[in-house]
């Protein structure tokens, strides 16, 4: 009676009643974070921060337009420069403090000319960043460059100072939801048990007192015949009851036995918390971007870490908006750090250290070897969407097995799915004859022989 997500059995009914019973409990929990007294403090702090920051900007910009600068920065510079932290080029925040404005202007216009001319600073930075040449930007006007500089020179005051408040608030929320439901259930069960024991003991003691002081306890009158006796004597009723019991029992027994070996709902905890919701859902990255071998091979493939690093070389932390109530930004950043550890990527040096270790992903979908399944046949030839079998992966924070992956489930789909015959000239004749044979317009996979035993078992 365990380990299965979708079972239609008494367990579910019991579960519902139990959850109803404990729902007030959740209400209690939900209210806690609201009590946090931080919100006022936070607002205060933000205000104090905002004031000086604004004046700072005005002092430093020297007439540059920050908004226009941001746009230019994002289109022209951001491919190689981050505001904070190394990328292909150096971090640019506060670059105005480090270099002369005229120097920056000529560098941005044509850095290679400066290097060729032997400008000391230019050669130094060129060598420091592995002699990667920065392309010239002759199209930028003086005011364009001023705008960009205004944007990069703006201090990062707001997000930095805001963090302690936000963190504290997050911690408060976590403290509220921190106690796991398991512990709560355990405590409740224990309290219930204690209550029962106390009740029993109190009752016993009271009775003893009554006996000692000679009080006569009212005794229940005995009815003529106990109900079970009359039940046993009525043979018809006994037979009907036992038949019903046997039927109901075998119904549940059948249901239970049918789920043995079916891993529907299997949701293991992976070594790195990879959120399909963020990647495939929010960012709409194609499944086959990472699982590229699903197009051409039997297995869909667990992407090797170089595929992760194609993007995560540049993305070392998640955006503020990515964090959810359940998983904080720090949590997600930690998971990206795990990837860096495994692949041996040194963020500060922006280079591979060469020390790698495998990530032991836990396989979820697995067919036994006696059943043949080929991904490319379904994905490329059949044009079946990944979600048909794997469910709403783009909504899964933690991946689980959506389909039962039983033979009945396979065959059912083969009976219902039509074959894509359009544009397949090679098999045109076969398709035509089969259509005539079955007198149908569209052939199903089953009519093509898709439920022959030897198609999958050989």
């Amino acid at each position, binding site marked *: 009676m365990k380990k299965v997500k979708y079972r239609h059995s008494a367990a579910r009914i*019991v579960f519902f009643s139990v959850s109803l019973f404990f729902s007030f409990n959740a209400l209690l929990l939900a209210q806690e974070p609201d009590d946090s007294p931080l919100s006022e403090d936070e607002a205060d702090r933000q205000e104090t921060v905002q004031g000086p920051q604004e004046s700072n900007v005005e002092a430093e910009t020297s007439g540059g337009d920050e908004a226009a600068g941001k746009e230019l920065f994002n289109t022209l510079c951001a491919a190689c420069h981050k505001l904070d932290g190394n990328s292909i080029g150096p971090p640019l925040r506060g670059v105005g403090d480090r270099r002369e404005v005229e120097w920056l202007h000529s560098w941005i216009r044509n850095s290679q000319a400066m290097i060729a001319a032997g400008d000391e600073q230019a050669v130094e930075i060129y060598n420091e960043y592995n002699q990667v040449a920065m392309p010239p930007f002759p199209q930028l006007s003086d005011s364009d460059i001023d705008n960009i500089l205004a944007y990069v020179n703006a201090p990062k005051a707001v997000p930095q100072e805001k963090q302690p408040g936000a963190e504290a608030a997050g911690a408060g929320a976590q403290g509220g939801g921190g106690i796991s439901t398991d512990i709560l259930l355990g405590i409740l069960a224990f309290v219930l048990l204690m209550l029962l024991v106390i009740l029993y003991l109190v009752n016993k003691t009271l009775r003893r007192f009554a006996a000692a002081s000679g009080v006569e306890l009212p005794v229940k009158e005995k009815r003529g015949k106990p109900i079970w006796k009359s039940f046993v004597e009525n043979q018809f009723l006994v037979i009907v009851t036992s038949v019903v019991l046997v039927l109901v029992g075998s119904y549940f027994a059948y249901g239970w036995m049918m789920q043995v070996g079916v891993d529907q709902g299997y949701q*293991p905890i992976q070594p790195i918390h990879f959120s399909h919701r963020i990647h495939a859902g929010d960012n709409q990255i194609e499944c086959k971007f990472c699982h*590229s071998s699903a197009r051409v091979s039997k297995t869909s493939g667990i992407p090797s870490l170089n595929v992760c690093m194609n*993007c995560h070389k540049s993305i070392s932390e998640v955006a503020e908006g990515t964090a959810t109530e359940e998983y904080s930004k720090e949590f997600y950043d930690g998971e990206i750090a795990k990837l860096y550890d495994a692949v041996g990527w040194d963020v500060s040096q922006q280079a591979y250290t060469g020390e790698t270790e495998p990530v032991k992903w836990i396989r979820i979908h697995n067919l036994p070897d006696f059943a043949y399944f080929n991904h490319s046949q379904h994905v490329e030839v059949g044009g079946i969407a990944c979600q048909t079998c794997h469910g709403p992966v783009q909504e899964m924070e933690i991946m689980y097995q959506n389909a039962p992956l039983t033979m009945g489930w396979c065959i059912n789909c083969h009976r219902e799915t039509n074959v894509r015959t359009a544009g397949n000239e090679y098999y045109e004749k076969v398709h035509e004859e089969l259509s005539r044979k079955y007198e149908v317009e569209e052939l199903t996979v089953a009519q093509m022989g898709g439920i022959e035993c030897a198609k999958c078992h050989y």
Partner: protein
Amino acid sequence: MKSLFRKTIFFILALSAVSCVENSKPNYQYMPNMYETVSYEPYGAYEVFVNEQEAKLPVEGTVSRGWKPYEYENSPDGFATAKAELQNPLPYTEDNLAEGKALYTIYCAVCHGDKGDGKGILVEREKFLGIPSYSDAGRAITEGSVYHVMYYGLNAMGSYASQTSIDERWKIDHYVMYLKGQLEGAPEREFEAEGTETEDINEKEENLMPPVNAEQTMEVKQSEPEGEPIE
């Protein structure tokens, strides 16, 4: 009293039964040796392997069938030569373009945008920034440079050699050049007839992964960082 006691016991039993539903472990199996095969499963963990890792890199120096070496090296010089002289060996046909489009949608469009204007969903969501349009005059991409960048990566873009085959990259190349033409408003290139040349290429260049080990690629990248040559 007694009935209440019994009810409680039942209740506790039911509670314990329900609380045991656990999805982090696979279910029981009737006959596990029917499910768990003797042979090694893809990506399995087995003690015989280094790091217990079944997924292994090819032995150094092995070449997969149909693989052809890529002659240009991963350096600014290699990039410049590839940009100048490398030509797309696949004919420009409707099929190749359609397949290129499908692949482009999978691998490139998230950043470069469906139209190739550098405004993909990841750029809109500000995950990646500074992705140029294909019509960017300063870059002036060519068939050769597009292929070279797909093969080795450039700046923030990584290599896509592990996810695509030689043929597939050239198909994407066709589509990228098509998008560039669209962006620049150039007249559409006429399709070529499918000739013998195609079959020849398909036979020879069926595939696939480069024979180098992943670490080596990383090392190469490390020692010879790719930069943008001066135009």
